[in-house]
């Protein structure tokens, strides 16, 4: 499976850049898919997440305090955007400082489960970002990807392939 990282201009701003991922030749990003999947049952919660992403991009930056940390492997930056206590939507992200985040997919985490591994959808979305984070780390070390524009953007080979669920 191949994929590429793309910038979401509508949500990016002077405080942070918001990226998402396009899988294969699809037209929609993982964030678009998350919206389409979530807004039917959780419209207000989905809107709240988009508002928060816009605030992060334009005003506050991607401060660590806004994300639930340690949702991936140690040190891989995979986290989840905090949701309202009464909501249980999870949106997984990879955080690179306060200037850049990659938003992946997510979904509803039922109260009946404790860990994301208990839900196939959440596990699939989360493990994909773990893989992507590892790929990006490797390419940064190999210098085939660089952070540019004061860490606000990626430059280089941002097309990936080889992920298997």
């Amino acid at each position, binding site marked *: 499976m191949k994929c590429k990282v793309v910038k979401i201009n509508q949500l990016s701003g002077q405080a942070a850049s918001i990226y998402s991922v396009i899988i294969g030749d699809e037209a929609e990003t993982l964030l*678009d898919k998350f*919206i389409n999947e979530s807004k039917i049952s959780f419209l207000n919660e989905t809107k709240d997440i988009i508002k*928060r992403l816009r*605030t*992060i991009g334009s005003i*506050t930056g991607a*401060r660590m*305090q*806004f994300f639930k940390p340690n949702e991936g492997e140690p040190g891989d930056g995979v986290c989840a955007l905090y*949701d309202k206590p009464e909501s249980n939507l999870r949106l997984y992200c990879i955080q690179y400082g306060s200037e850049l985040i990659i938003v992946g997919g997510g979904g509803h985490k039922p109260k009946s489960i404790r860990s994301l591994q208990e839900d196939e959808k959440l596990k699939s979305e989360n493990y994909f970002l773990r893989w992507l984070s590892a790929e990006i780390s490797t390419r940064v070390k190999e210098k085939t990807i660089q952070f540019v524009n004061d860490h606000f953007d990626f430059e280089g080979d941002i097309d990936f392939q080889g992920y298997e669920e």
Partner: protein
Amino acid sequence: MKNNLTAEKMKSPIDELLDEISPIEQRKTDTRMLLAARINDAMRAKGWKNKDLMEALDRNTPSIITKWLSGTHNFTMDTLVELESVLDISLLNLRPEKPKITFFTIAVSQKATIDTALPNFVNLTGDFEQTSMHIKLVQSQKNHFESILCS
């Protein structure tokens, strides 16, 4: 009509959702997250961890601090006042207001040398006596001006 429909169909899910968010809705989220950011900055300035803030506020649930810092919490006024007090910060005045311009009349009843009586920003020269002037002052300069005249 057909063109409009085509344009509508081409909108991304993000655009469609952004269209539904009113400016006031967005501003509420902005403010919640700005408050959380300011609280976190103040904690870091004091070298405090979540536990320190919890103890300073005499609370006993660590998760409440995480919730406050997440930018999702709708603070009560009382909590904000408590936070201002323990963190020595202002939370209820997040954005600096534009300086107000006030027009007022000054009556000088005593001969004074302008150099000593008036601050630098009043661009006048020479001596004056029993004079009324209309001066445009920025509000923040008013107190300074009054203190000079009263001394």
